[in-house]
């Protein structure tokens, strides 16, 4: 009780001493304009700043990798336990865009051989699983049976296997259950020989647990979330560090004085809700770079306009929910899942794309990364996602 009281007192003290919040007068950004705004950023901001905030996953020991220390330590402990002969399956779970691949990348340099594989397709048959194992272990031919695969894999030198894009394991398709049973059997039978670490989007992981009880196979579940306010601040600072810029409002700031940027970061975190990519995008939108003096300043931080989500019909919400849970759906997968005619399916997907809620990569549709969080909140609220 004393601890709780002290924490409450500390919180009150911090609140009293924290800088005054700034007025939220940022513009509302329509999802349909985000692409255009991204292009404008490319024209107005220096290349080095854009590079620093690029959305690509961070490589091993990239100094911009911050805020995931606990998750990384937990994964390193899993690897250490495996080295001691106590190998168990591990999964890294988090919402899309929270840095799963970047975290996984931090394990890529080890004493043992490390295999990294981004799951290329959804397994829906025994043969799919065998092909997957062939890719993971670079085998000449795919194993013919589960027992043959287990025997073969257990005879290979020990290695750490990092499986990324675990959401690809999920498919609401006939045969997916049997395929995952096969894969599960192979993973369990080889977990002491090889260290398996899977990175999976949170929603897909929940579905896999509901449908096939995957949580019973994976003993170690390491969860990460979107950034907290200090983590987002630290991440922004790390990305700007070494570029030679200085914040204008911090010029002449004496030691011990309140950081004038803190209210801006607080607002940024509030608008992005900790989503790194969205946070960086909003920051770049508000950022003014004075090249001569190498100074940085911030305008009003904008926020996303999510009103368009309310115009979605019920069927469209179901499509969005399934696309999110699967981490993206191919046009044909969408047709099969909703039993739609090809044109009907295409119309629905394209309409959602026009609203700025989906992005298309060839014929694969996924939630627009910057709108993903708002979309998910809307889907949960509308009881279309759980």
């Amino acid at each position, binding site marked *: 009780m004393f601890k709780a009281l002290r924490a409450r007192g500390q919180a009150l003290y911090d609140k009293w001493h924290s800088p005054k919040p700034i007025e939220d007068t940022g513009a509302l950004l329509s999802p349909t304009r985000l692409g255009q705004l991204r292009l404008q950023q490319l024209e107005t901001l220096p290349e080095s700043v854009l590079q620093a905030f690029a959305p690509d996953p961070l490589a091993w020991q990239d100094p911009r990798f911050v805020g995931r220390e606990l998750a990384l330590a937990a994964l390193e402990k899993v690897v250490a336990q495996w080295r001691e002969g106590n190998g168990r399956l591990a999964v890294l779970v988090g919402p899309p865009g929270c840095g799963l691949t970047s975290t996984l990348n931090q394990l890529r340099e080890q004493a043992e051989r490390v295999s990294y594989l981004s799951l290329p397709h959804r397994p829906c048959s025994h043969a799919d699983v065998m092909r997957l194992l062939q890719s993971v272990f670079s085998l000449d031919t795919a194993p013919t049976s589960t027992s043959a695969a287990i025997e073969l894999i257990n005879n290979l030198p020990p290695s750490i296997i990092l499986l990324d894009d675990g959401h690809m394991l999920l498919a609401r398709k*006939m045969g997916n259950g049997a395929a995952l049973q096969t894969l599960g059997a192979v993973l369990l039978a080889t977990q002491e020989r090889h260290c398996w670490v899977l990175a999976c989007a949170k929603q897909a992981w929940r*579905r896999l647990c509901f449908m096939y009880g995957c949580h019973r196979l994976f003993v170690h579940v390491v969860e990460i979330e979107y950034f907290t306010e200090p983590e987002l601040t630290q991440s922004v600072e790390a990305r700007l560090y070494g570029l030679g810029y200085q914040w204008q409002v911090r010029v002449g700031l004496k030691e011990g004085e309140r950081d004038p940027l803190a209210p801006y970061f607080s607002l940024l975190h509030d608008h992005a809700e900790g989503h790194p990519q969205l946070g960086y995008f909003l920051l770049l939108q508000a950022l003014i770079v004075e090249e001569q003096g190498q100074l940085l300043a911030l305008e009003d931080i904008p926020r996303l306009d999510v009103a368009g989500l309310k115009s979605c019909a019920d069927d469209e919400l179901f499509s969005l929910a399934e696309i999110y849970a699967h981490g993206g759906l191919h046009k044909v997968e969408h047709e099969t899942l909703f039993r739609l005619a090809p044109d009907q399916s295409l119309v629905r997907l394209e309409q959602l794309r026009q609203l700025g809620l989906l992005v298309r990569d060839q014929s694969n549709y996924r939630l627009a990364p910057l709108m993903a969080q708002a979309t998910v909140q809307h889907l949960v*609220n509308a009881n279309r996602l*759980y």
Partner: protein
Amino acid sequence: MEMPSEALEKFLTLFSPGKLMAIALLVAAAWLLLTLMLYLLQQLALQFPRHRLLINRIYPLTRVIIWSAVVLYAVVGIIQPHASVLFAIMGSAGLALGLATQEPIKNMVSGLIIMINPPYRVGDMVNLAGHYGEVIKLEWSVTWLRTFDDNTVMVPNAEALKTAVSNSNSGALDEQIAVTLQLPAHSDHQRAMQLAREATLCSPYCFLKKPVAVLLGTENVMGQVMLTITIKAYVLDVRLERRFATDIHVRVIDAYKTAGLWPLPFEPVNAA
């Protein structure tokens, strides 16, 4: 002793134009308040569909409370009758009303009981007095259902307390659906059960947080033994009940056709 004419005169003085005006204003204010409240709750339910069952629960009981308060205040606060007049009116009105409106009063009391200790709430899927549908309105004396044929059915509340009520979701948004299919006795029942389960899990309306059960049974149909496959799964939202049941049918039949277990059950079984 007071003469009847004097009593009548006293009674009439209770209802002066000013008091009647105050009562009218009070009723209008209560009506406005309830209309506004209903509008706001409807907006809230639209904004947060996930919590619509909880939000819809608020209105029926609040309306009863507000109207009871209005009546009480109008009598005690505005009309302010003498105790003897009040008791005389209450006695005679009670007797008259009791005799004349036995059924409505019974319904109203039942309505009050339903609101306080609800066997169902607004938004539940219930089987009430032989009608199956969603409870769309719960009034003091009647309950309104919307059936799947889009008919609106009014059921007196007394009926709800008199007969058995089957509630499919009991205040939750998800609901269990049972779909039964028949196959000839010689079919591969294990494969049929596995396909049924898998096809059900493929439906986007299936609530995966709750288990999907597939039950096997036998039935004698026109002298022929048939296997019955019963799929019990939960639908994400009670409003999607029929859509989900149809979806399961389509998916399972498709799976059976692909696996060669269909088209049956009426195909004659060869003795050989």
